[in-house]
């Protein structure tokens, strides 16, 4: 009523505009509605039948497959294809134009509606009288409503949470159980340099203490290795892996542990970023291009060479992935060995510049994490369980560092080394042992959580140049490059005994059943008790020079000589 009154009072011009606006309103409403319906129809049509992916076309293609030379069929396809593409671009044009027209329609609709409203404008007025009690009622009800909706929110959250199935946690355990071998399994094998965890301890039993390569006593087999290398054998079940390289190429060899016959050999080449032959780095003869020992997890074997080429091969020699880590800037040649932890391949890549510690996913070859490191080294990482925490311990020319193998986080470090460090660390019973020629041998108590590492004792007499220490809870064995072997009290550093041999030691001592196996450079294996008194168990020879560390599994000992791979067993 109010409305009509006010309209009546308006002058004629307003009435005329009002009528025009009303007309525009009706027209634009009808127009917008039609366009809107058309657009929605277009959408459903396209969704039901995509012109670029029509079933009719698929049928024709299937027919063409039967008669590839049917000219009529070809013509048909071409015609339909043209039609389809026309239909596609037409529909795109329709959507674009339709959208624009719809927008125009809507704008006109609202503009005219607004104009009408402006003309019909009501006089402002109060609400119908509602009394003061309504005010308070409103407040009370609003408070109540908010309390109820809060409660509703809580109930909704809890019920939604109860209804949601979260499958991630179970998945992780299932995955970690199957993706990489269990610790017990690894302990039975010889998966890398210096055995499981790289600590020199093996679970082999009944290893021979004597043999004769000439008569064949206790020698199970002997196989030639095509290319030279300083790397050591690694063993998983029936597979023995060694690497070899010279200026002509880099190779990975796999031998049958039972018979000594070569299962396969893999030539490493064609890696993106790998340097061409004439650009290979200079290395010393005593390092060569195949100094880093391979590592395996029973599903794959990984090998690194002096050119920075890194490959992952399956157990049949098929390449899983390969990459070049960048040519190492190393004046003797890169020699740090690989180690596998769970599903990560750990690469100690220390060099003159840009030293890194890299963890690579064993399955894909992709980098999982990377840590910058400082000075150069020739040593290898060890990965040991220290009071329930897995630690990755590395040495370089200044320090010993410990990292979390899962994340690469630095746990602790101690600056107690000096010189060109090639010996790796050893661990036993809470103490980490490091040593290097011209530096000292140190026993470091591994700190708990955030505490600083503590050097328990130091000793600086006969120190190893290359050979890594070997430790158990009582004694520490150190072998020097000029033939001295010292046995120290692991807890105090007091010297138990000292022996001098004719040849020096590059190989590291390894332990099985309380027997230390220590290979000298002349190919003589010194077998003695891991004890505070020196008791020799045998000194058999392989008859050729040896620089690598022996491998062992079950009751067999594997030795890589200058040109042969030997297997000894009872």
């Amino acid at each position, binding site marked *: 009523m109010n409305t009509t009154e006010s309209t009546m009072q308006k002058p004629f011009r307003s009435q005329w505009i009002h009528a025009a606006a009303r007309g525009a309103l009706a027209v634009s409403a009808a127009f917008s509605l039609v366009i809107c319906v058309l657009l929605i129809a277009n959408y459903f049509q396209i969704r039901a039948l995509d012109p670029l992916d029509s079933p009719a076309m698929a049928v024709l293609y299937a027919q063409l497959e039967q008669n590839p030379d049917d000219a009529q069929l070809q013509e048909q396809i071409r015609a339909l294809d043209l039609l389809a593409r026309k239909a596609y671009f037409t529909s795109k044009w329709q959507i674009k134009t339709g959208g624009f027209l719809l927008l125009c329609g809507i704008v006109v609709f609202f503009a005219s509606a607004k104009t009408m409203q402006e003309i019909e404008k009501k006089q402002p007025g109060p609400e119908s009288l509602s009394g*003061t009690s309504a005010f308070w009622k409103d407040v009370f009800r*609003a408070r109540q409503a908010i309390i109820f909706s*809060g409660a509703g929110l809580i109930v909704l959250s809890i019920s939604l949470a109860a209804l949601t199935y979260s499958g991630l946690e179970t998945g992780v355990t299932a995955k970690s159980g199957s993706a990489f071998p269990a610790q017990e399994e690894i302990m039975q094998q010889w998966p890398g*340099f210096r055995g499981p965890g790289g600590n020199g301890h093996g679970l082999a039993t009944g290893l021979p203490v004597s043999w004769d390569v000439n008569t064949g006593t206790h020698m199970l087999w002997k196989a030639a290795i095509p290319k030279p290398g300083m790397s*050591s054998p690694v063993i998983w079940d029936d597979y023995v892996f060694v690497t070899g390289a010279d200026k002509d190429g880099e190779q990975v060899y796999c031998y049958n542990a039972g018979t000594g016959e070569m299962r396969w050999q893999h030539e490493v080449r064609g890696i993106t970023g790998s340097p061409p032959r004439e650009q290979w780095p200079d290395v010393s003869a005593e390092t060569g291009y195949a100094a880093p020992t391979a590592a395996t997890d029973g599903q794959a074997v990984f090998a690194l060479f002096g050119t920075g080429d890194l490959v992952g091969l399956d157990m049949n020699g098929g390449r899983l992935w390969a990459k070049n880590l960048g040519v190492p*800037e190393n004046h*003797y040649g890169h020699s740090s060995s690989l180690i596998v932890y769970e599903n990560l391949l750990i690469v100690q890549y220390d060099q003159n510049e840009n030293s890194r510690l890299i963890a690579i996913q064993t399955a894909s070859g992709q980098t999982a994490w990377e840590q910058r490191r400082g000075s150069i080294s020739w040593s290898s990482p060890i990965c040991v369980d220290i009071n329930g925490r897995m630690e990755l311990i590395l040495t370089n020319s200044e320090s010993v560092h410990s990292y979390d193998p899962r994340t690469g986080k630095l746990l602790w470090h101690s600056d107690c080394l000096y010189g060109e460090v090639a010996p790796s660390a050893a661990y036993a019973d809470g103490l980490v042992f490091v040593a290097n020629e011209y530096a000292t041998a140190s026993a470091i108590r591994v700190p708990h959580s955030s505490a600083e590492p503590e050097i328990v004792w130091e000793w600086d007499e006969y120190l190893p*140049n290359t050979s890594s220490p070997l430790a158990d809870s009582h004694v520490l064995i150190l072998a020097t490059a000029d033939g001295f072997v010292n046995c120290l009290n692991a807890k105090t550093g007091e010297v138990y005994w000292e022996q001098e041999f004719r040849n020096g030691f590059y190989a590291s001592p390894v332990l099985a059943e309380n027997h230390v196996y220590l290979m000298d450079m002349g190919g003589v294996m010194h077998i003695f008790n891991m004890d505070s008194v020196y008791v020799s168990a045998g000194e058999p020879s392989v008859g050729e020079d040896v620089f690598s560390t022996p491998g062992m599994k079950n009751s067999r000992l594997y030795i890589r000589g200058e040109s042969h791979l030997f297997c000894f067993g009872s």
Partner: protein
Amino acid sequence: MKKVTSLSGSKPKWAVLLTAVVMIFMAAQWAAAENRFPKPEFESAYQQPRTTTPDGRGHVFEILDMAVLVLMLILATVFAHRRRSRKALFVLTIVSLLYFGFWRRGCVCPVGSIQNMTLAVFNQSYAVPLTVIVFFSIPILFTLFFGRTFCASVCPLGAVQEFVLLRPATVPFRLSRILGILPVLYLGMAVLAAATGATFLICRFDPFVALFRRSGSFDILLLGLFFIILSTVIGRPYCRFLCPYGVILGWMSKLSRFRVSISPDICVQCRLCENACPYGAISKPVPDDPPESRRTGVRRLRALLIAAPLVIMLMGWSVSLMHPLISRMHYTVRLAEQIVKEETGSTDQTTLESRGFRASGNDPGILIKEAVQIRNRFRTGSWIAGIFFGIVIMGQVLGLSMVRHRNDYEADPQSCFGCGRCFESCPRQHMRKAEK
């Protein structure tokens, strides 16, 4: 075995250096030589074309955007506080709709910028563009001093709804308070999603940006149409019942130095403005006859204050229970769940994402570990979000339990958009005009 130290005395370092230099040079050629089919050597005079790289919207336009934003904020503030002109504000609204809406087509808008700011705070590697910072902070600073003049006629989302409002229906006070909780929930979830790097929820479900672009997914376009139709009968439904930026501006506006007022000077309590506000932002005078004694009120308030911490923690706990569900906003979590399903054999259906993941050769174990880490972040985040919801809800309950005395008709600073409709209905405004 690893090898050898001081035996070879000379260290040919220059050779190493030289090798490195040559290596860098060689790397490019080596990589190029990896192609399956070598690059041909053309005998004819054929010239290889270059890949074209058309440029995007120039940097100049960004500066223009910021300048227009500031200019429009100043104009809106002048129109709402000094000129007190509804017409001028409406014209400005149309300008905003044309410039920020149809010409600039949406991104970044201040509403969405909340997420960029959040992501930048939580992710050190994300560099937030200068435009975003300006779009986020300038409207807040204006609101701190002059109220929500940004909402009045600068925000293009508000402008659409302002333009299409025809016959506003009154939303009952109770209902508007319940729906008023939604923006808070939306804000909490959007911040959680942005902080965890999952997604930008606000942009994803922005109903109007698809209209500005006249293109977008069908669902969102339909949602836009729905909001347009809804906005003809309910005043600014998005601003009042969804907009997360509105929550922040509402709080800032409570602190504002100058407020948009219905009357230019004094309220004569003529009640003529009672029907003027389509957004329910006019607070009526508080009657002098509370239906209960002061003691009852105080006792209730005390009980509520004691219950508040409990309710807040309960809210935090219950929302945190939902974190596995909420964490599905994150791509990695969704992917990991799918991979777990595939690995455990509970589905034989692979998805495009899982096939893409398999093609990349990444380790599922690492993916799942990562997903678990993300989910843990969601647990912490949803606790905080829940506590935030609890605080807001308890704040509202407490606010409704402490009714302060008020004599006049006032624009509620928190919900007033400063559209200027009430100016016209105030007789004092007309008197002032006449005086001039």
